């Protein structure tokens, strides 16, 4: 059976790739330093495949059909789609075995994820995946979530989906060591008069709750309240799904930087999962 040997979340503002140097040097170093540490840990822990959850930004789905959750089952997926994002465009290997197992397991657990045999991956997944593996060869199971187009899945259900996801990964016998990753958040506004604002107070409160393992107040939040920290704050669903996948393990903040040139509260947090078995 597979172990979740690495679980973490990271913000995914596209400017972390497209306008990297726009961030103040110290903030940039702190943020990428955390992701560098993650990359080293992934190598030392022998991660064989990763599952990455992120928001669907009108890249694969449109208003005719907008699933709350969609699992990428394909042998490969394409990304990144944004022409201006300075990450090589290429086919990213999937992991159909793990992905199908996740789909079946979560269906059996009472969820109804959509599936796709070929997804297009935008900055939401690709920025964070690239920082994990610059060669972009690590098999990736993408899971896109609706964090943008109402009606949205309640955050508590995103967390519960994460629990089923964690159980699915741990019951898969085709791999030994898997990483689960949430990409998105924290506070930010896009396409509104408040674009560029960051709610540092919310970000620190949210990270503190993750570190304490006290999620009830977060999981009770209605969408109207979540939006007080930005319409991009709905991406907390990806973080909460990862928290669910490894529950009750608390998080450890590796970096938090309110990077105004990137219009986002940029954070990296790891969940201290059990040490992997000796290889």
């Amino acid at each position, binding site marked *: 059976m597979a172990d979740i040997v690495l679980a973490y979340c990271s913000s995914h503002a596209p400017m972390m790739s497209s306008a990297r140097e726009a961030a103040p040097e110290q903030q940039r170093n702190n943020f990428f330093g955390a992701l560098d540490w993650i990359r080293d840990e992934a190598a030392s822990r022998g991660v064989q495949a990763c599952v990455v959850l992120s928001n669907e930004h*009108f890249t694969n789905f449109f208003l005719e059909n907008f699933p709350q959750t969609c699992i990428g089952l394909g042998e490969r997926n394409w990304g990144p789609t944004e022409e201006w994002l300075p990450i090589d465009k290429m086919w990213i290997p999937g992991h159909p075995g793990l992905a199908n197992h996740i789909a079946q397991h979560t269906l059996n657990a009472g969820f109804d994820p959509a599936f796709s045999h070929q997804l297009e991956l935008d900055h939401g997944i690709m920025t964070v995946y690239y920082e994990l593996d610059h060669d972009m060869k690590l098999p990736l199971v993408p899971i896109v979530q609706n964090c943008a187009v109402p009606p949205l899945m309640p955050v508590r259900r995103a967390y519960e989906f994460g629990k089923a996801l964690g159980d699915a990964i741990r019951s898969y016998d085709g791999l030994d060591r898997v990483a689960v990753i949430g990409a998105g958040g924290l506070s930010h506004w896009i*396409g509104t008069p408040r674009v560029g604002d960051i709610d540092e107070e919310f970000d620190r409160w949210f990270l503190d709750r993750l570190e304490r393992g006290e999620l009830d107040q977060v999981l009770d939040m209605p969408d109207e309240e979540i939006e007080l920290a930005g319409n991009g704050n709905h991406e907390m669903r990806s973080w909460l799904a990862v928290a669910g996948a490894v529950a009750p393990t608390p998080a450890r903040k590796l970096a938090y930087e309110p990077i105004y040139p990137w219009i986002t509260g940029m954070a990296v947090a790891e969940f201290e999962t059990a040490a992997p078995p000796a290889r």
Partner: protein
Amino acid sequence: MSLYQLHRCVYDWVRAGEVSDKGGDAGREGFDASVYELTDDEKKAFETKDVAALYQLGLHAVLLNRFCRAAGFARDEYRKILEPFGSTERRRGRWQT
């Protein structure tokens, strides 16, 4: 009905310039907005890249953000355009002391 058409038009235009695995897209240069059932106001807002009008017409914020990026508006530029439509937030979140 029409608002859907506006969303569809903007979405298709943005996607036309992106890097698809399929290749062979005509790109945004040859984009034909006449196939969409837009009102005069919607058509004008799209064709003149009027960010304020698109916002007021109700274009989804994520799509408006992508439109601005694809149309060459820097974030500071489009914030200045949208700022007059902002309002003071009086509600408070549970994290606010």
